[in-house]
């Protein structure tokens, strides 16, 4: 009888525990990271009575988590990728909105500038047209600097995100280390500390959202955590904290590092893979740097090319044109870790051939290795290097491992500014004027007069071309040139009256076309042009630069180079959005997979409650029966 009561009470106890487990499940239905717990019943050891074993009741053998480590690992991987995609997309979208806002964009300002230049070309003597050009140029330079500053603000945002992510990672790592210790302690008793394990999984999830991790479970129950490429973060009960440190090369840029004994900091940014951190690092190198370089290339290209053309003109005061825009200096940055004494300098040869990229130069002890960062193309040698419209010269002695960052175009938009102060300094006129002598009896003509360099300008004196049927010897006709380069120009009216191109060397490297049928002694005079307010020839050339493909190896106009940058940002953002969407749905299915295994279903728990309640009622009935049996026995023996 006592056994029966024992069996009944064991049933009551076990069922109560199972009910509690179901209640725990119901209570935690909304707890993030909670895994459904299941109470496993098992029979108590049977008693041997005579020839048979008599069962002695039930107990809850274990309360286990409904858990699949493969599913959880997959979830963490997805979470890292989603963290990356989310951070990358968020930052890309902000840049996308910024550059897509046509009111703040460069395009209207570029159009305004060139339209104003056309205005000057139409009415070159009008001071007000010139003044409008200057103020439109101011607007253009404001747009350049503003756009540059707005883009640079994303560098700060990236720094902030890195700092706060590293802070969170350190906090999570410390918590993980502590939980590891607690779990090892709890597990030593043999029971599974389900809720602690859930908490740890939850921390690992949060951590993988910030940075990609690899977690390895140890036999004692602790989990060791490594960053993407093997950098340990948590080993048992110990956490290795990450630090944020200034980049040795890039000014104003933060990198992720690990403090080493002796006060050193190892930079491990390139070991990060996955998570918000990599999202931010990717954004910096794939969207921000290219956009700033592309913008800088337009700014530097315009400055160099417009200045060059402007210098080939003459202003209202008869002076040769100066710089229209302020010259922009390019930067070479030494790594703070350099130990050698080399000086690297950078000069622009051809603004048309510039690439929108930085260049990284590293000395390996024997030679230099120069890498274009936009596509990783590299060349090596002793230097100097000439490529992509720049020349890199090296002086002094480098040490192995020294590195330099060359930034021909990055950030150049910040230095974009107007150099011209007064409207009369605009060189709208061309420096050389041609005239035909009134005494000419033939039809000698000259056209397409163009200066192509500032060499020999302004002309020291008139250059006179006199037609002479025997200029180059008896019967070989041409022009005798006096002044300028001197000598003779072969010109045969019989075959070349339709036009012959002539190029001088020196004297502004003049190009022109001779035509017509001159008579002996006919004279064409080229003279210095000064103070001709109606001359718009240089203004026309300046205005024409708008539709000339002058950038990117002569394949884009200024406007196209800018719209190309916007297109680049748009494409990257679109990719980021598509990627985020894909990661989102992959994450959804990973979550669904985990929920299938570990999620709490209230209907299921309700059914469980009903089942357990019935079992409990039955076990309670067993107590009542035991009591009845006992009373029967008492009554039967009462005398």
């Amino acid at each position, binding site marked *: 009888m006592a056994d029966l009561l024992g069996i009944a009470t064991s049933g009551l106890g076990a069922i109560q525990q199972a009910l509690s487990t179901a209640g725990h499940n119901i209570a935690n*239905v909304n707890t993030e990271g909670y895994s459904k717990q299941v109470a496993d019943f098992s029979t108590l050891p049977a008693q041997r009575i005579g020839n048979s074993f008599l069962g002695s009741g039930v107990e809850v053998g274990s309360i286990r988590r409904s858990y699949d480590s493969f599913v959880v690992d997959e979830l963490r991987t997805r979470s890292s990728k989603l963290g990356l995609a989310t951070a990358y997309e968020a930052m890309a*979208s902000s840049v996308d909105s910024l550059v*897509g806002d*046509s009111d703040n*964009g460069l*395009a*209207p300002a570029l*159009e305004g500038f*060139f*339209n104003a230049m*056309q*205005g000057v*070309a*139409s*009415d070159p*003597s009008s001071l007000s047209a010139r003044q409008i050009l200057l103020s439109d140029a101011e607007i253009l330079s404001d747009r350049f600097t503003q756009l540059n500053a707005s883009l640079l603000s994303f560098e700060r945002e990236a720094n902030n995100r890195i700092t706060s992510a590293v802070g969170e990672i350190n906090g999570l790592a410390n918590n993980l280390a502590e939980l590891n210790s607690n779990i090892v302690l709890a597990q030593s008793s043999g029971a599974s500390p389900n809720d602690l394990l859930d908490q740890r999984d939850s921390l690992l999830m949060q951590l993988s959202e910030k940075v990609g991790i690899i977690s390895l479970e140890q036999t004692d129950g602790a989990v060791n955590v490594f960053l993407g490429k093997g950098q340990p973060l948590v080993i048992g009960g110990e956490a290795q904290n990450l630090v944020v440190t200034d980049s040795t090369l890039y000014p104003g840029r933060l990198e992720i590092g690990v403090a080493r004994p002796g006060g050193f900091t190892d930079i491990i940014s390139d070991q990060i893979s996955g998570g918000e951190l990599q999202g931010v690092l990717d954004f910096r190198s794939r969207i921000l740097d290219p956009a700033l370089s592309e913008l800088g290339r337009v700014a530097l290209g315009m400055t160099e090319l417009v200045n060059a053309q402007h210098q080939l003109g003459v202003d209202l005061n008869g002076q040769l044109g100066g710089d229209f825009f302020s010259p922009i200096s390019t930067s070479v940055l030494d790594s703070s870790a350099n130990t050698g004494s080399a000086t690297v300098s950078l000069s622009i040869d051809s603004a048309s051939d510039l690439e929108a990229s930085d260049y990284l130069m590293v000395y390996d002890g024997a030679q230099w290795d120069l890498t274009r960062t936009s596509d990783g193309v590299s060349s090596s040698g002793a230097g100097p290097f000439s490529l992509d419209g720049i020349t890199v010269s090296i002086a002094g002695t480098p040490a192995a491992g020294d590195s330099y960052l060359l930034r021909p175009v990055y950030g150049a938009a910040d230095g974009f500014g107007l150099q011209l102060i007064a409207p009369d300094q605009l060189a709208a*006129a061309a420096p050389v*004027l041609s*005239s*035909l002598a*009134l*005494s*000419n*009896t033939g039809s000698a003509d000259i056209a397409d007069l163009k200066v192509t360099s500032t060499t020999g300008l302004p002309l020291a004196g008139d250059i006179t071309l006199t037609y002479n049927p025997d200029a180059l010897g008896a019967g070989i006709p041409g022009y005798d040139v006096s002044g300028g380069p001197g000598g003779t120009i072969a010109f045969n009216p019989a075959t070349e009256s339709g036009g012959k191109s002539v190029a001088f060397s020196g004297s502004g490297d003049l190009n022109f076309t001779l035509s017509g049928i001159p*008579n002996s002694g006919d004279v064409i005079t080229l003279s210095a*042009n000064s*103070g*001709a*307010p*109606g*001359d*718009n020839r240089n203004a*026309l050339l300046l*205005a*024409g630069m*708008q539709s000339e493909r002058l950038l990117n190896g002569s394949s884009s*106009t200024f*406007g*196209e180079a800018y*719209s*190309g940058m*916007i*297109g*680049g*940002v*748009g*494409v990257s*953002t*679109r990719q980021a*959005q598509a990627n985020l969407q894909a990661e989102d749905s992959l994450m959804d299915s990973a979550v669904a997979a985990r*929920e*299938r295994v*570990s*999620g*709490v*279903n*209230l209907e299921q728990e*309700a*059914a469980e409650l*009903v089942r357990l309640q019935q079992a409990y009622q039955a076990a309670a009935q067993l107590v009542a029966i035991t009591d009845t049996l006992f009373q029967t026995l008492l009554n039967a023996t009462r005398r």
Partner: protein
Amino acid sequence: MTISTTQIFRQGISAILEQQEGLTRTQLQIASGQRIQRPSDDPSGAVKVIDIEEQIAVTDQHLRNDGFARTELFLEEGAMEGAVNVLQRVRELMIQANNDTQSEATRGTIATEVRARVDELLALANTRNASGDYLFAGFNLDTQPFSSSGGVVTYHGDEGQRRIQVGPSSLIPVSDSGTDVFERIKTGNGALTISTATANTGSGLVKSLSQSSSFTSDVYTLSFSQASATAPVTYAVNGAATGLVASGNYVSGDSISFNSVELVIEGEPANGDVFTVSPSAQQDIFATLAVIADALEGPSTEAADNAKFHNAMGAGLNNIDRALDNFLRVRSNIGSRLNNLDSQGDVNENFLLRMKEARSEVQDLDFAEAISRLSAQATSLEAAQKVFIEVQGLSLFDFL
């Protein structure tokens, strides 16, 4: 398969959120009327829109330049029309004066009018536009191009020709230099000119001077001689480079030919009279007119003076005709530039229209599509919300 309660909730909510996002996007598109809100919506479309807008801005500027060019050309055409009228009036006056019924006195009156016309022409050559720039000064448009001092007119401009961009590759000249219009004018018939020596005493009158295309260019001196009063008048033509090319007895009205040049002299040239045939040179119109006015004011009563007067008138008329040719050439140039502007303007307008169409094709929203999309999305959202409420309302606990 078990689905956890939170998963059911999450799925229901995310379905609703997704529909909401789509709805908001459509709403934004409809509100702005633009398909592309940000470059990432359609990167290549966004780039296209920017490039098209630049084209539109450039074309707009070309159309503005077109208006400017028209104003300048109309002004120049007006001046040229005035100049042609002046020359035609002078021509009429000369023909009137050339008539032998006129006396020295009446010719003097005509000379006065010619001089007044010269001043009128000078004023036209110094025409300014609305901004005070001189039309015929070349690039030197803030300096008065023609000034007269002691009857001699001097040009102060240069030979620059201002051009204006009215199309991607279309530069239209909007000015002509004073040299080109008023100074670079050939004398005579354009190839040759004949002058009468002032010392001539006979009444030889130049009737005509012509040449075939293969004529030899040289300075020819035609001199008459008469051995005695009864001897026949003979002539000899000597080329400066070609030597003696013709000689013979002079017959009034017979042509004298040499080196493909044909010359007819009438009247009675005296012994020692000289005419010079030389290649045409350039002479500005003011000099031509001054010579004419001087001739009109000169003596014409004596036979020799009368012949010189008529010869001067003949040469003057030739020179005036060359100037008229030149003025008409300039006018027809202006006309063809204006035609050019018209056709370029049409091209620009068409291009602008096409570009605007292209922009709208890339950027503008298809409203019909968007609105039907909006209502479809609204229906989906409503359905998702209903399903969510339905599913959330079901619980076994309601029956316990």
